[in-house]
C-alpha cells in the first residue's frame, strides 16, 4: 500500500492513421485495428515480451462476438500473454475514460504501467439478426418437443430476413447526434461561417502538424494508409461554404464539412509510474493530473445532448485549482464544429454559468489560438473510441514541446459523448516546477 497517490507519466502514444468509412480499412475488424495500434506501441517503446500491468480498451460499435475485445487483441500482440486487459464502453468518451482508469490504478500503486486504448470501425459494423427472428430462434431452442418446435417454426415470416443494423440514433430520443447538435447550434445561435472557420482551421492545423513532422512518432502506417484519410490541407471557408446542410433542415448550418465523418481507426497510449519510466530510460512526455466525467439529462430536461462537458469543466477546474484561462493548450473534441462553439459560448455565458452550472461568474473565454493546435477530429476523423487516445498522445507531446517555465504547461481535454455524457482530463508538462 502507498501513502499518497503517485504521479502518473504519459510515456507516449501510437495510433494508426484514421480512415474514412468503407475505404482503406473496410476489411479490418476492431480486433485487427486494436492489435495494430498496440503492436505499433510495442514497437515504439520496446515492449516485446513485457508484462504490462493492465490494458484498458474499448469500442463503441461492438459485435456480439467481440467478447473481451481488448484481451483478445493483447493476445495477438507481442506483449506478454500474462498481461491482463478489460473492455470499457462510454460512447465517444471511451478512449479518455480508459486513460483515466489506467492513470488512477498507477496513482494508487496497483499497477506500475498500463495501456489505454480504443478502436472503432463503422465499415465492419455489427449487423444483428432481426429481433423477431432472434426471439423465435430462442423460443425454438427452449422447446423440448417436436410439435412445439414445429409450432415455433410456423412463426417464421419472410420479412424477418431483414437484419437489424446499428443506427446513429439516440435510443431515448430517436434523433441522430447530428440532429441533436443542430438543435444546440440553433439555441446558442452558432452561425454557419464560424463553424466552417473552425473546420478549416482544424484541417490546416493537422496538415501543419504532419508537415513539421509532429505526427511522425504518433502515427504508424496501416494497410497502405500513411496519413489520416479525411485530412484536406487545402480546405478553406470558401470551399466549405458550398456544402449543403445535412442536419437541421434546409436552413441548417451543419454540413458534412463541419461535422465529423464516420471513420475507422484505433489508438493506444502508454502510461506509467515515474520509477517505471526511469528504470527503462523512457522520457516522460507529460503527467496526467486529473479526470472528470459528467452527464446531463437530455431526455426530459431542456439540455443539449452534447453539453455534458460544459458541466464537467467547473468541477475539474475546482479540484485542480485553476481557472479556465490557466491552460496553455485546449483540446476540445470536434464531434461537430457546432458542439465546440456551443460549449465555448456556454462557458462565456453568465446566465448559463449561474443558473445551470451554479457558478458565481462565467468561466469566461479562452484564447482560441490555443485550441486544437495540432488539428482536431474534423480533420483527423473520429473513430469513436480511438479519439481519446489520439488526443491524449497528441496533447502530451505538444506539452512536452513547451519551453520549461516557472510552472508546468497545462492542457485540458474535453470530449462529448452520446447519451448525454462527457469526459474531461487535465495534463501537465514534465518541465517547470513540480506541483
Amino acid at each position, binding site marked *: 500500500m502507498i501513502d499518497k497517490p503517485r504521479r502518473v507519466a504519459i510515456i507516449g502514444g501510437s495510433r494508426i492513421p484514421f480512415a474514412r468509412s468503407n475505404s482503406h480499412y473496410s*476489411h479490418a475488424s476492431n480486433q485487427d485495428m486494436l*492489435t495494430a495500434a498496440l503492436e505499433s506501441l510495442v514497437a515504439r517503446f520496446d515492449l516485446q515480451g513485457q508484462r*504490462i500491468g493492465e490494458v484498458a480498451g474499448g469500442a463503441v460499435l461492438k459485435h456480439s462476438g467481440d467478447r473481451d475485445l481488448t484481451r483478445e487483441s493483447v493476445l495477438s500482440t507481442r506483449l506478454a500473454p500474462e498481461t491482463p486487459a478489460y473492455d470499457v464502453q462510454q460512447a465517444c468518451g471511451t478512449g479518455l475514460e480508459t486513460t483515466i482508469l489506467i492513470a488512477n490504478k498507477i496513482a494508487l500503486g496497483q499497477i506500475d504501467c498500463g495501456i489505454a486504448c480504443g478502436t472503432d470501425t463503422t465499415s465492419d459494423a455489427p449487423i444483428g439478426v432481426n429481433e423477431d427472428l432472434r426471439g423465435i430462434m430462442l423460443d425454438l431452442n427452449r422447446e423440448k418437443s417436436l410439435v412445439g418446435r414445429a409450432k415455433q417454426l410456423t412463426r417464421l415470416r419472410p420479412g424477418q430476413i431483414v437484419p437489424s443494423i446499428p443506427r446513429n440514433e439516440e435510443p431515448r430520443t430517436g434523433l441522430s447526434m447530428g440532429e441533436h447538435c443542430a438543435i444546440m447550434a440553433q439555441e446558442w445561435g452558432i452561425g454557419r461561417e464560424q463553424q466552417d472557420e473552425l473546420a478549416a482551421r482544424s484541417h490546416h492545423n493537422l496538415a501543419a502538424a504532419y508537415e513539421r513532422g509532429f505526427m511522425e512518432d504518433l502515427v504508424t502506417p496501416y*494497410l*497502405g494508409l500513411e496519413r489520416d484519410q479525411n485530412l484536406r490541407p487545402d480546405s478553406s471557408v470558401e470551399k466549405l461554404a458550398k456544402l449543403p446542410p445535412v442536419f437541421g433542415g434546409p436552413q441548417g448550418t451543419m454540413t458534412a464539412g463541419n461535422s465529423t465523418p464516420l471513420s475507422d481507426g484505433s489508438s493506444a497510449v502508454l502510461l506509467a509510474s515515474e520509477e517505471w519510466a526511469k528504470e527503462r530510460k523512457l522520457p516522460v512526455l507529460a503527467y496526467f493530473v486529473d479526470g472528470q466525467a459528467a452527464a446531463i439529462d437530455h431526455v426530459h430536461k431542456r439540455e443539449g445532448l452534447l453539453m455534458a462537458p460544459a458541466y464537467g469543466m467547473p468541477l475539474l477546474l475546482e479540484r485542480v485549482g485553476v481557472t479556465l484561462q490557466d491552460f496553455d493548450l485546449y483540446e476540445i473534441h470536434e464531434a461537430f464544429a457546432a458542439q465546440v462553439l456551443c460549449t465555448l459560448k456556454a462557458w462565456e455565458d453568465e446566465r448559463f454559468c449561474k443558473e445551470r452550472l451554479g457558478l458565481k461568474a462565467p468561466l469566461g473565454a479562452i484564447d482560441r489560438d490555443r485550441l486544437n493546435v495540432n488539428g482536431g477530429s474534423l480533420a483527423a476523423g473520429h473513430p469513436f473510441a480511438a479519439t481519446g487516445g489520439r488526443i491524449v498522445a497528441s496533447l502530451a507531446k505538444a506539452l512536452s514541446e513547451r519551453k520549461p517555465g516557472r510552472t508546468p504547461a497545462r492542457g485540458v481535454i474535453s470530449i462529448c459523448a452520446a447519451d448525454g455524457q462527457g469526459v474531461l482530463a487535465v495534463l501537465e508538462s514534465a518541465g517547470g516546477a513540480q506541483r
Partner: protein
Amino acid sequence: MATRTLKSSPRLLPLYARAAAPLIPGACLLPFVPGAGKSIPELELTLQDVRADGAQVADYAKVCGFALREHLPITYPHVLAFPLHMAVMADGRFPFGAVGLVHIENRILQHRPVGIGEPLSIKVWPTALEPHARGRAFTLVTQVSAGGEVVWEDFSTMLRRGGGSASENKVGPGERKAADRDGEGSPAAGLRPSATWRLPGDLGRRYAAVSGDRNPIHMHPLSAKLFGFPGAIAHGMWSKARCLAALESRLPDACEAEVRFRKPIVLPAKVQLASSLSEQPAGAGGSAEAPAGEVVGDSAGEIRFALTDAKKGTPHLDGVVRPVEHSEERSTGK
C-alpha cells in the same frame, strides 16, 4: 535452363485442365500435356511486379486466423506463387501431371515481413527428381524478392507415389521403416495440446476461395472420393497457416517455418494444436509477484508444434519455427 518471364499471373482453370489431362490414357503423347518427359525439365518461371490485394489478404487472414496487419501473413506469398507452381507442373515436358502429387513438406524462410502493398517479383523452379521411400520426390522452390533483395522463400516438396524403394500399394519394409521414423523423429512428439479447433465440412472450399487452390480433393467429398480419399481433405497449406496464425504473436520477424504433412485431415474434423510454448512453466518470469513490465517468455528460441486429430491422435502435421539471424546465408536455392 529455360527462364520464362510471365506477363501476368497465369489463369488457373486451363492449368487445372492440363494438370488433370495425364489422367486420360494416351493424352501424354500430346506435346502440351505433361507426362512425356522422363525427368523434371530445367525450367524457371518468373513474374514481376506482383502486389497482394488488400481485400484478398483480409479474406485469407480471416479463413486462416491471422490478424490483419501491415504485413502479409507469413504463408501468404505461397498463395501469390501458387499459379506459377501450377504452370511449372503443367509444362508439357513434365514427367507427370500435378493431379495425384502429394505435398509432403513445406519450408518457408522469411527474411523479413513483407508489406501488403509491396511490389514483388516471384521466381519458381523445380529441383530434380530424387528417390523417396514411398516414390520419387522433387521440390518446388519459390523466391520472392522486393527491390532486388530476396525477402521470402518457400520449398514445397512434392511426392509422386510409386516406383520408390517401397512398393506403392503394399506396406513394404521400407515404408514401415519410414513410418516409424516419421513417428519417432517428430519434433513435436509428446507436446501437450493447447487448442482444439472444429473444422467445418466446407473448409476446403473456403480456403480454395482465398488461395486459388481448387484441387478437387479439397472441394467436395464426392470429388475427393474420385481420387481415393474417404472425404474432402483440408489443404496442407491451410493447416500450416492456421498453426502459424495461432503462434503469430510469437514468430520472430525473420524466421524459418518448416512442416511435414502427415495424414490428411478428412473434413469435417476436430483437431488439436500442441506447441513447445506450452512447455514453458506458467509464470516463468510472468508470475503475479513479478514486477509488471517484466520481460517474460522466450521469443528467441525455437518453437515446435504439431496438429493431431482430437479424438484419435492421428498426426496431421508437425513442424518447427526457428529464428533466422540476419547474418545467415540468404539464399539456399542456387
